[in-house]
């Protein structure tokens, strides 16, 4: 979707299933996504859309006993991460690609000091000795706005916002090429969320890291990202620059999402709710998985899943109706 050579990570035809007692859950369905160097890409969707599964799938962190990657190629530096050995993966995780988790209360280990947890990454990937690593960890803590003196404190001694800063410091320790942030501010209050967003904005420009921002908050996407991919039932249904997609949404689901948010600026009396319920991943409808909730479905929608079509060079949508309207 842009120049090929700039692509940092390319996911194609990615399919993930979960085997559970109730049956097979189709979490990711033929997902295609590319992240370019230095790009900040937002991934939005409701709960159960497969956002987190995508993130964990990239790093191959999905639970081994229940999740199965049916097909797909995750191309990173010419290598396919979907078929990589565990040893090679461990070299990449935390070094080339790192992740910030949703809940800062549970993503840090309570029995290690925060300094130790940041230093751990540096010892593993940069082969620093203990003293150097701790020194470096102190510097990283200062970059995210926490006093170096607190390096020997334990996670429980920090507030939620500060813990998330520690998580960010650990994720940035090796200046990764790609940072995956999985709802990093959902567990935080708005004023603390504002602190974290400002921090991420400045760090991203400082480190020139590519960012995959996963969130259900469209406001955060519009603040932090250049491009956005809207996800529904395990697949991308609309992709483009934030400006294009938010000001001129094409897919009925994106339109619905934007209409469902109460706005601070205008005075709508009623919100436009999307009818029906989120598609059941155990029994996905045939054709376009959004068609049972869609107001403008046609014959084709019920039979064949739509393919991504280009609206213009910065806007793509997977919808039969949009194609016909053209």
């Amino acid at each position, binding site marked *: 979707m842009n120049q090929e050579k700039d692509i940092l990570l390319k996911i194609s035809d990615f399919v993930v299933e979960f085997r559970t007692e109730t049956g097979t859950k189709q979490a990711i369905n033929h997902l295609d996504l590319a992240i370019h160097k230095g790009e900040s890409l937002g991934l939005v969707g*409701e*709960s159960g859309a497969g956002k987190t599964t995508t993130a964990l799938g990239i790093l191959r962190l999905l639970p081994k006993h229940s999740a199965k990657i049916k097909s797909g190629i995750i191309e990173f530096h010419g290598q396919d991460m979907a078929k990589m050995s565990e040893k090679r993966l461990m070299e990449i995780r935390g070094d080339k690609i790192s992740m910030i988790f949703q809940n800062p209360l549970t993503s840090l280990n309570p029995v290690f000091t925060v300094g130790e947890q940041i230093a751990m990454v540096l010892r593993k990937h940069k082969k620093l000795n203990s003293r150097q690593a701790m020194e470096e960890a102190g510097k990283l803590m200062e970059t995210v*706005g926490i006093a170096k003196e607190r390096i020997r404190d334990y996670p429980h001694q920090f*507030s939620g*916002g*500060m813990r998330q800063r520690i998580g960010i410091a650990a994720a940035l320790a090796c200046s990764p090429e790609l940072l995956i942030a999985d709802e990093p501010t959902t567990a935080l*209050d*708005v*004023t*603390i*969320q*504002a*602190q974290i*967003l*400002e921090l991420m*904005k*400045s760090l991203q420009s400082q480190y020139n890291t590519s960012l995959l921002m996963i969130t*259900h*908050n*469209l*406001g*955060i996407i*519009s*603040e932090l990202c250049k491009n956005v991919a809207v996800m529904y039932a395990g697949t991308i249904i609309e992709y483009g620059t*934030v*400006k294009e997609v*938010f*000001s001129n949404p094409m897919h009925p689901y994106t339109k*619905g*999402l*934007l*209409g*469902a*948010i*109460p*706005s*601070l*600026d205008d005075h*709508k009396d*009623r*919100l*436009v*709710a*999307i009818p029906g*319920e*989120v598609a059941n991943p155990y029994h996905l409808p045939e054709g376009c998985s959004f068609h049972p909730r869609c107001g403008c479905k046609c014959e084709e929608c019920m039979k064949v899943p739509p393919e991504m079509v280009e609206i213009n060079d910065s806007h793509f949508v997977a919808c039969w109706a949009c194609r016909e309207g053209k």
Partner: protein
Amino acid sequence: MMLENDTLVEVKNLKKYFNVGKGKVLHAVDDVSFSLKKGHTLGLVGESGCGKSTVGSVTMRLQDPTSGELLFEGKDIFKCKDKKENLQYRRDMQIVFQDPYSSLNPKKTIRSILAEGYQIHHTVTKGELNDVLSLLSEKTGISKDMWEQYPHELDGGKRQVVGIARALSLNPKFIVCDEPVSSLDVSVQAKVLNLLMDLQEEMNLSYLFISHDLSVVKHISDRIAVMYLGQIVEMADKDTLFSETMHPYSIALLSAIPKVDVENKVSRIVLKGDVPSPINPKPICRFANRCWMSQQICFEKEPELLEVAPGHCVKCHFAKESRKLMAGAEKTGLNSGEQI
């Protein structure tokens, strides 16, 4: 300010302290007063730990207040000892809880959850029960197939609708909505908000709507109160609050919300630090240590909640100057991303 007979609920100087041992007292709610008109909605916003939910549960008398009055249709409920009268208040005031996963009894079917209120208060006979339940289900959009289901079989949005239907079953006049949509996805949230607003119009309900999400509160409320550390720091009609924000905390809170609008980006005030502890607070302005315009007096004297314009109350020494100061700070680039 408003006609006395129009007011349904009036809370005066409500305080709720918790003893946390070793002579420490947690001031969860400290001197909160507000009033609510019939058919209106008062939104209560603030960050976690600011005491909004405690206000809700004390108003419902789920907890006893440390001091204060609650006038419901002119009578003080906190002092009421008469059992029969108390039962009547229970009927008139209901609550919708935040978490639809823990607020419904997992061992009961939806039908028995909805019927519980009628059975306790004996407002209908056994023969009428089915008709009344059908009516209630129709009003709230619960299909009859759901009656024999258990809460775990429903998704979050439907559970919250059951919670709302249960609150409505006894035809209350006043409902406390304690973060009713914060655990729901946006598309489901829109449905629940629409339902709440339709029911309000139909039954002339009054809501105390508690939420941390300012855009949701703005959507549903007539008046909004902003809380910080157990106190109301600013209260005004919703349009006034958003257009003429005066308290520095409200200004920061409004600017902190990430906006979808790609065209008009406003500069943001990032507050430093976290909310301080509400244990044994000093008699000074509680926001002073995080405030970007605090001065000597803020650390010495607690400001009062003063009415600066009709219906617009602010608790700040510099209420009138705050907007000017903000404009000044913007010019010097003090608050664009920088922590001040």
